[in-house]
């Protein structure tokens, strides 16, 4: 693609802005900062479009976003929060108060467990689970091998299960 062509650029933006923002959120857990950084990356690309190799642009935006985030976001404890869709209203079994409380508890345990993972593992896992990105695509965007992505996916699920078991004890 030609990053200096407004048409090309907006298609690229529509396709990638959401994922880039989410990548930042999954990695650093600061929503407002992630919004700003993702937007800034695209503004920078647009302003400096003539210096940019259109074939490497996808990996580039992830690298730029990461570098900028590391400059801006202090090393604090990551707190991830997600909203959840309400449970199936037609199924009576899933509407009992006990079930709802249990589900809430499980949600916060899982959020806590995710927050305690290494950022580079969490980001890969959530890009696949929440955004439905294929391993190959994640690998390309982040400059990793598919094998590395697979290892992280596996390890995260192992770690999440262990953590949640730990909370139950």
């Amino acid at each position, binding site marked *: 693609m030609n990053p200096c062509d*407004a048409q090309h*650029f*907006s298609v690229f*933006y529509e396709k990638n*802005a*959401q994922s*880039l*923002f*989410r990548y930042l*959120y*999954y990695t650093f857990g600061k*929503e407002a900062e992630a*919004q700003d950084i*993702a*937007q800034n990356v*695209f*503004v920078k690309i*647009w*302003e400096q479009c*003539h*210096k940019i*190799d259109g074939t*490497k642009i996808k990996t*580039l935006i992830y*690298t*730029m976003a990461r*570098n900028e985030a590391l400059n801006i976001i202090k090393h604090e404890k990551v707190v991830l929060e*997600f*909203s*959840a*869709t309400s*449970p199936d209203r037609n199924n009576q079994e899933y509407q009992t108060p006990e079930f709802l409380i249990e*589900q809430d508890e*499980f*949600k916060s345990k*899982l959020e806590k467990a995710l927050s305690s993972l290494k950022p*580079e593992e969490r980001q890969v896992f*959530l890009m*696949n*689970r*929440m*955004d439905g990105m294929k*391993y190959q695509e994640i690998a390309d965007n*982040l*400059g*990793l091998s598919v*094998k590395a*992505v*697979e*290892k*992280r*996916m*596996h*390890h995260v*699920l*192992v770690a*999440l*299960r262990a953590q*949640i*078991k730990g909370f139950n004890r």
Partner: protein
Amino acid sequence: MEEQETYLSDWLDGSMNDQALKALVGEAEFREYQSITDELNRWKAPVFQGDLTFLEQPKNKEIPVRALWVRWSVAASVLLAIGLFVFQGFSKQVIATTGEELVYVLPDQSTATLSPGSELSFSSWGFAWKRTISLRGQAFFKVAKGATFTVESDQGFTQVLGTEFTVHSRGNYYQVRCFEGSVEVKIDQNKFVLAPYQWVDNLNQAVERFEGAENSPLSYWSVPLSVVLADIEAVYGVEIDRTVVQPSWIFTGKLDHDNLNQALNQALWPFNLEYKFVSEHKILLQPTQ
């Protein structure tokens, strides 16, 4: 052994089915994995709020901003160079030390703009008849019309009549870029003639085109990364351990003059490298992640 397994990633992307995973880990463990993925399916991530309005605004024109100390050092250097010219006799040596850029006016009114950590020398006696300069480092030349003007370096010769060009000679590397007129370059036994916006170096030894009219000190067209890093060392007075840098890595682009971190980022990101200060002036490079 456990660390090498990736069956859960196979299950997560559907290349292993539920039955197979159950058979492998047992019913109870399978349920626990499934409750995690089910819970995640219920979740929604926050939504990006950005917009494309910036496409309609005119772009910020990039005006290179030079730090005050650079201006002063340029001014001081010119004065110093003139002083040297008055007091010294036949052989002139002009040195731009680490961190300073120097504009030097030659006796024939040609100008040489030396990048930091570069030096040139010439014989002031008879310069008007035989315009020959030796150069180590990088310099941009604006040559007044007249007799043949020659720039000698260890790796090659460049000859012109009246033109604008850049010679970059750092370590074993030698590159010439022509901005105006025509330039003749001799590398080893080969002779090349450059038209405007053509360049040649001693690695490829072939004439090729470049784009953009930049001739500021830290602007590059197809230069080995190790040479770029040597320039950064000269400009900022640091030492960079570049054992990870491959000779085949070629850089094109422009670096900041007055912000070391920016310059390093600009040079390194295309190669997926990051840097670390091991002491105040020593920098170590390593692959990202």
